[in-house]
């Protein structure tokens, strides 16, 4: 099907997703207003004064609208055709940045052009998404075989490495969210599950590291029990092998009873001396049991259990031996193990106070004391959500969450309504980035995630972030607008 050039604009207005654009506009305006509130001072000028953060943000926003509109005018074929060159160019820019960027608070991620500084890492998000979309839409490409996986993962890991070298670990971590895209495109759900379990083990082992039980850290005991539950669960649900599951469960119960009896009898039972042999024996039994059952699924179960145990020990060692003390502290504060309201926990503590003091209805626009008096550091950038929480209260905070939820779900809908792989993969990339930013940024501000310095898209102050996400979103909108022209073929 061919589209005539003169019809393009009319078609565009009709087929572009206005719902997304409206959500976008609401967020950008609400963001700039929040920045005005966050940086408001008694003797300061109006919201639109260009010497103020809010004024600058409105300027950034105006330019972002221009960029967005321009992107809507670019034919989607251009994006498809130039996906790799754009990606290559951006990677090159990242590498150059490492060497030419000035040191700003320890990070070398800013390119300075006179009065304007830009962060290439924010724009690489779109480039990586395009490259990934291009790869998956290559004729005959499926996520099968180590070679294809390697290419896909390389596209994701390359910017991560560059950005880590720029000392912007937070921004680098964002790309790990693309695991959702790989999952959607056929990667085994098992990997996602394993990633989830890795986070669970990590939290459990560290959170309960201080207490001891059976002579070993309580966290390890809980993790061992988790692994054993997982083995039984996988045998029953995943392998659907009732007999193996029952036998392993009975074995565990018998071993548990034995350990309990010994303890009651006054014999000290060491946790490692108990759990490791029991799990090892159960896995040996399963290897033998494989002969009678579905070989592949039981083997996966065994491998999963074994690597779980390995991972537990790795977390323990990595945390205590590899991480720097200040990183340990930051993680411990987040997990609620250590309390340090004046040190590592200062930002989060003040930000919790800001949000908590907002109550249900909030203190009202410009009436927030925590943010206005600068108790919350980075309040106009990474901690902008505080201002909303303090001045707009529970109602405003939830409204922002729901705006994001609507945007992300809308993007998933856009992804699925496109029949082309390129559009779908690109859309999922955008959704993944947003999921990661939302989860980490707001989680950090309300004290549920570690402090990782990434902005709240469309809200946080800063041209790079706003432009980066605008570009991401408007490329998607243009690609989506063309969905009827590029049907399945």
């Amino acid at each position, binding site marked *: 099907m061919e589209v005539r050039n003169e019809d393009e604009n009319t078609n565009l207005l009709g087929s572009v997703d206005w719902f997304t654009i409206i959500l976008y506009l609401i967020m950008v305006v609400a963001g700039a207003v929040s920045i005005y509130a966050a940086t408001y*001072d*008694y003797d300061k000028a109006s919201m639109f004064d260009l010497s103020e953060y809010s004024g600058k943000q409105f300027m950034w926003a105006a330019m972002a609208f221009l960029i967005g509109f321009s992107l809507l005018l670019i034919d989607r074929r251009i994006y498809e055709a130039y996906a790799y060159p754009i990606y290559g160019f951006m990677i090159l820019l990242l590498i150059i940045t490492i060497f030419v960027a000035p040191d700003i608070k320890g990070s070398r991620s800013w390119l300075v052009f006179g009065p304007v500084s830009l962060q290439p890492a924010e724009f690489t998000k779109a480039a990586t998404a395009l490259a990934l979309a291009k790869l998956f839409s290559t004729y005959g490409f499926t996520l099968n075989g180590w070679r294809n996986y390697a290419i896909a993962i390389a596209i994701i890991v390359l910017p991560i490495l560059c950005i880590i070298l720029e000392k912007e670990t937070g921004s680098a971590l964002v790309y790990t969210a693309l695991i*959702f895209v790989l*999952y*959607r*495109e*056929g990667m085994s*759900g098992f990997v*996602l599950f394993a990633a989830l379990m890795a986070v669970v083990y990590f939290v459990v082992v560290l959170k309960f590291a201080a207490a001891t039980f059976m002579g070993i850290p309580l966290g390890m005991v809980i993790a061992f029990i988790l692994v054993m539950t997982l083995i039984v669960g996988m045998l029953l649900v995943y392998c659907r092998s009732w007999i193996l599951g029952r036998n392993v469960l009975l074995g565990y119960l018998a071993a548990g009873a034995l350990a309990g009896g010994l303890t009651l009898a006054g014999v000290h039972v060491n946790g490692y001396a108990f759990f490791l042999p029991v799990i090892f024996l159960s896995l040996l039994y399963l290897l033998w049991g494989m002969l009678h059952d579905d070989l592949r699924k039981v083997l996966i179960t065994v491998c999963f259990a074994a690597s779980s145990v390995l991972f537990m020990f790795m977390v323990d060692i990595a945390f205590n031996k590899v991480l720097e003390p200040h990183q340990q502290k930051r993680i411990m504060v987040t997990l609620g193990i250590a309390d340090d309201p004046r040190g590592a926990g200062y930002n989060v503590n*003040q930000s*919790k*106070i*800001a*949000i*908590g*003091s*907002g*109550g*249900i209805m909030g203190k009202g626009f410009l009436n927030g*004391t*925590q943010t206005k*008096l*600068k*108790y919350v550091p980075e309040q106009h950038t990474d901690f902008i959500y505080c201002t909303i*929480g*303090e001045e707009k*209260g*529970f109602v405003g*905070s*939830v409204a922002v*969450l*729901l705006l*994001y*939820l609507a945007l*992300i*779900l809308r993007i*998933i809908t856009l*992804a*699925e309504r496109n*029949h*082309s*792989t390129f559009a779908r993969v690109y859309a*999922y990339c955008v*959704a993944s980035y947003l*999921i990661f930013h*939302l*989860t980490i940024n*707001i*989680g950090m501000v*309300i*004290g*549920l995630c570690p402090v990782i310095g990434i902005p709240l898209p469309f809200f946080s102050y800063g041209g790079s972030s706003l432009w980066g996400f605008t570009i991401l979103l408007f490329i998607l909108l243009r690609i989506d607008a063309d969905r009827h022209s590029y049907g*399945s*073929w």
Partner: protein
Amino acid sequence: MRKDYNLEKRKFVIGGFIVAIVLIYIVRLVQLQVLDSSYKAHADNNAFMEKVIYPSRGLIYDRNGKLVVYNTPEYDLMMIPKDVTPFDTVDFCNTLQISRSEFDQRWQEMRKGRNYSAFTQQVFMHHLTPEDYGRLQEKLYRFPGFFVVQRILRQYSYPVAANVLGDIREVNSKDIENDEYYRPGDYTGDLGIEKSYETWLRGIKGKEILIRDATGKIKGRYNDGADDVSPVAGNNLKLSIDIELQAYGELLMQGKVGAIVCIEPKTGEILALVSSPSYDPALLMGKERGKNYRDLVNNRLKPLYDRSYMAAYPPGSTFKPTQGLIFLQEGIISTSTQFPCRHGYINAGLRVGCHGHGSPISLKPALQTSCNAYFCWGFKYMMDKRSKYGSTGKAFEVWKNHMVSMGYGYKLGIDMPGESRGFIPNTAFYDKIYGEGKWSGQTIISDAIGQGEILATPLQIANLSATIANRGYYITPHVVKNIEGIGVLKKNIERHDTDIDKQYYNHIVEGMRMAVLGGTCTRANIPGLDVCGKTGTAQNPHGRDHSVFMGFAPMNDPKIAVCVYVENAGFGAAFGVPIGALMIQRYLRGDSPGLQAQGRAMASRHTIAVPKVKKTTTSGTQADKHKKQPSKPVSSDGSEE
């Protein structure tokens, strides 16, 4: 490309993930914003700084409206340690005129303080003079974290009545715990009426609510000051003390240890409350307070110990009028009853000595001559009168209750802190010592003449004098006449009637008048003033007898009741009577050159070796205010300046 519907279902996993995250975050927001209300307080704590505005402390006037205690401003240098950034310490020390080592020492002391916190205001230096403040204010901006709070400094117009006025000191952690009015660094009354009238004198603190940012900078007043509270000045006090009489009393007591209490009988108002040795109240204010306070505490004569109402002495013969009253009331004697006195009370191998006078003797001459034997016999007959009381124990309880009704054995309730209750034993007390039923009037015969176990404060003795002057009642003695804006406190006009009939008092008054006209206190016989009196010569285990006088005047319209108690000064006639007579004249007749000369003569008669006394010393202006200085107070260390 064919759509893989199996993979399309995975959108639910990804969508479900973000829905779950948003739900978890909403739950967290409910917890933070809806359920937990403590964050609001945290935020207010952060943002609002309450600056206390101290009220002016109440002024103190004497009964004639003379200003006795007033305020001048002084300044405290405060700091919030966390807000302090490195500053030029040399400049700082020069401005405050302190040495570097003093600076370091203050810093150390502050850090070691009990209430130290880097986040709350700490007192760096007390008692900056207005001159210090003037110099500092210009440079204060160079020393972030430091600020100045205006406080008040008590000033005294007269260098007397320190024991009555008391002083103020910085609150300690106990004060803060007990009274939520106080914050670290506040002042509170420590002794005297500064302490007992603290709640009226201190006033109500005002506050200014300021907005403070994260760096500690003040960004302005909250709500344009709409929620600020102005301080309410403390109530002024009008003393019942006549400050000039007080000064004269302190002059008379120079070189002696003891007390003078003068009471207006009709009102219970204390006209003078002298304790000797005394000190200049100005010693306990300002920069030198700590050192001076230590000196006063360590002084062997205990000038901080107010002998007039804290010390319990044997009342000696001043006790005899109470015995006469009880015997008359109980029908043990009549005015014509006579007892023998052969140079003393001699009975069953016991002898209580007496001096030469006629025998036998009746009540009024017995009071006139202060006959020991008479009151011993009366006491013995009362204690042994089984027909009336059943047992000595029961008789003694009756006796004790009469004593209590006359204000002995319990605190009188003076409006000053730390009053002593004296001591009147009861039956259980003697039962414990001698065994129940194993003692009789003879055993405790010394009680009859105010010796033995009996103890009374000079205030109680003066109060007895007032009660006799009133013929049977007293008003709770007090030093504060009224509180401006509040009026007279109810407890200060409470009338207490004794359980002795009024008629009997007239006999005692006559006896006491006879003692002045031709008995033990003839030196108090001032023509035209009709003085009634009773001497006392109190034996005590600490050396020479105490010289005591109790009296009132004029006889039929009493205006002043007095008790003079001079430790280790011999006969009552030696010191007690002349001092009492001078006090009565000074009050009833006013100042005169003759009285001043007699006062100075008395001041030079010392009973203890008190070295000459330094004039105290704060500043030049302070000394000028002491123009009327009628006495030289005993200093803390006794050395001459």
